[in-house]
């Protein structure tokens, strides 16, 4: 049983300088990342940035063409792929899908489904589920395996806004309860959750990384995502300034600047952001500049 949180420092997978090349083109290159037990690492980036490819390297689905993957011995992975197409000719109930890659006792199976409010779907055929229901069932299936590492490739696609918040909360809860490591992929920049320990921005390579708060402040991140990015870490934001329509920022002290940077002296709280979630394993809150300075 893996219900006991693992020691915090146990590293589950490490990618070093890893890249994938297809038809003479690098899909993603030079990725360094490691996921520890109890840690949530979130990959964000535009379409085609190599997020799914990176996740596939971390899970061993794709062998890196350069660099390497190191995985802990006997590592058990739970995977929610981005796309899944099940032919209509296959009679597959939710119950059978839950046992797709390994046997599962009924109690564990039901508990996992109840956790995502999908208990009533037990006997439903998977082809008849809505997009949101299907995603929740896939998450339940991956969690029910009691994995050491949970890899979620855009787990909230097709889920409505309220469901999205609930699902992100649930992912945080799963980490707290089981102590597994989580690799999360999101293209929805507004919703990168506060429970994330490390955000990695990808665009063919690692552009920047750090805590959600730190990354949202980094210039690299801004360059990559422009104004959209300001919604990042929405739970953490201290509203001591206003973004003007022309992109400039008015601070509480009335001054107007081109950017809002924690060190520009206009912010009351500096970069001491508040987290909505209390981490079971607490980590120091690094300054934005420290973490975000880690360029690729």
């Amino acid at each position, binding site marked *: 049983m893996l219900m006991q949180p693992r020691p915090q420092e146990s590293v589950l997978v490490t990618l070093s300088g890893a890249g994938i090349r297809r038809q003479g083109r690098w899909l993603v290159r030079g990725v360094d990342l490691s996921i520890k037990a109890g840690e949530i690492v979130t990959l964000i980036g535009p379409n085609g940035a190599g997020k799914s490819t990176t996740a*596939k390297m971390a*899970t*061993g*689905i794709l062998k890196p063409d350069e660099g390497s993957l190191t995985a802990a011995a006997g590592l*058990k*992975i*739970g*995977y929610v*792929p981005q796309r*899944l*197409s*099940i*032919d*209509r*000719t*296959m*009679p*597959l*109930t939710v119950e*059978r*899908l839950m046992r*797709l*890659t*390994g046997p599962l006792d009924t109690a564990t199976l039901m508990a996992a489904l109840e956790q995502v409010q999908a208990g009533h779907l037990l006997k439903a055929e*998977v*082809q*008849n*589920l*809505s*997009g949101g*229901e*299907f995603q929740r069932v896939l998450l339940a299936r991956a969690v029910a*395996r009691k994995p050491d590492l949970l*890899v979620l490739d855009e787990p909230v696609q097709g889920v409505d806004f309220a469901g999205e918040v609930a699902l992100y909360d649930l992912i945080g809860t799963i980490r707290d309860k089981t102590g597994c490591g989580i690799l999360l992929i999101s293209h929805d920049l507004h919703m990168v959750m506060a429970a994330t320990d490390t955000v990695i921005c990808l665009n063919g390579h690692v552009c920047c990384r750090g805590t959600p708060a730190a990354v949202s402040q980094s210039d690299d991140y801004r360059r990559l995502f422009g104004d959209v990015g300001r919604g990042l870490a929405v739970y953490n934001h201290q509203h001591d300034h206003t973004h003007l329509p022309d992109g400039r920022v008015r601070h509480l002290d009335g001054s107007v600047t081109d950017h809002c940077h924690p060190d520009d002296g206009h912010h009351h709280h500096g970069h001491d952001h508040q987290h909505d979630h209390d981490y079971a394993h607490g980590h120091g809150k690094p300054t934005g500049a420290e973490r975000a300075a880690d360029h690729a």
Partner: protein
Amino acid sequence: MLDDFFVRALLAGIGLALTTGPLGCLVVWRRMAYFGDTMAHSALLGVALSLFFQINLLVSVFVVAVAVSLLLLLLQKRQALSADSLLGILSHSTLAIGLVLVAFMTWVRIDLIAFLFGDILAVTPADIAFIWIGGAVVLGFVVYLWRSLIASTVSPDLAEAEGLKPERAQLAFMLLMALVIAIAMKIVGIMLITALLIIPAATARRLSSSPEAMAVTASLVGALAVVLGLFGSLYQDTPSGPSIVVAALALFVISLLPLGSRIIHRSPAGDQT
């Protein structure tokens, strides 16, 4: 009892249908109907090569079917042509090469019709033994690899990430297909093997609520089609292989009727493709 050609035909046909049931389901689920057809058509090239090199017919058919499927996978990885174009090229060119080679060998006289459409009434006790032993081997592997086969049908990526080795399952699946084609050729013939794989599976879909139930049902439906087809062929004096396929089709059509309401009740939403 084995002295009677009709009893031998029944035994051979039923043995084959039990084997093609689960394999046919996998073909349908994996959307590989045309792939199976291509492997079957390549069997004629196997026949020609066996005559030319004077090697065992079944071995030759098996080897050629495996070679063609491997070639296909190789060409698909290069992605120069779409999969269905590649299948069309390989399917018909192996069939044509087989026919041309046979025509070149003026010293052999073979019954082409028997190879193309089967000659179930001519099976020998040795054939029956081969069908049942070969079938047992195929089914044994299918059962052993079942979880991996199903998981990699749903998602090869997911199966790989969770440690089920989908590539091994894929390779095993192709070898089993080749073996079934070698077995089935004599019964229903090269042109109709795919029908015996797909039609019982499609019929079973309406009657099953799990992959496992569908695999078993497909076997039973196939066996029923063999019995009905052979009796029909006996009383109406029709060719036996095609009669079996017609019987399978009739069962498929019947399966659509009483359960029609179930299809209507299915909501069109939630198609995960």
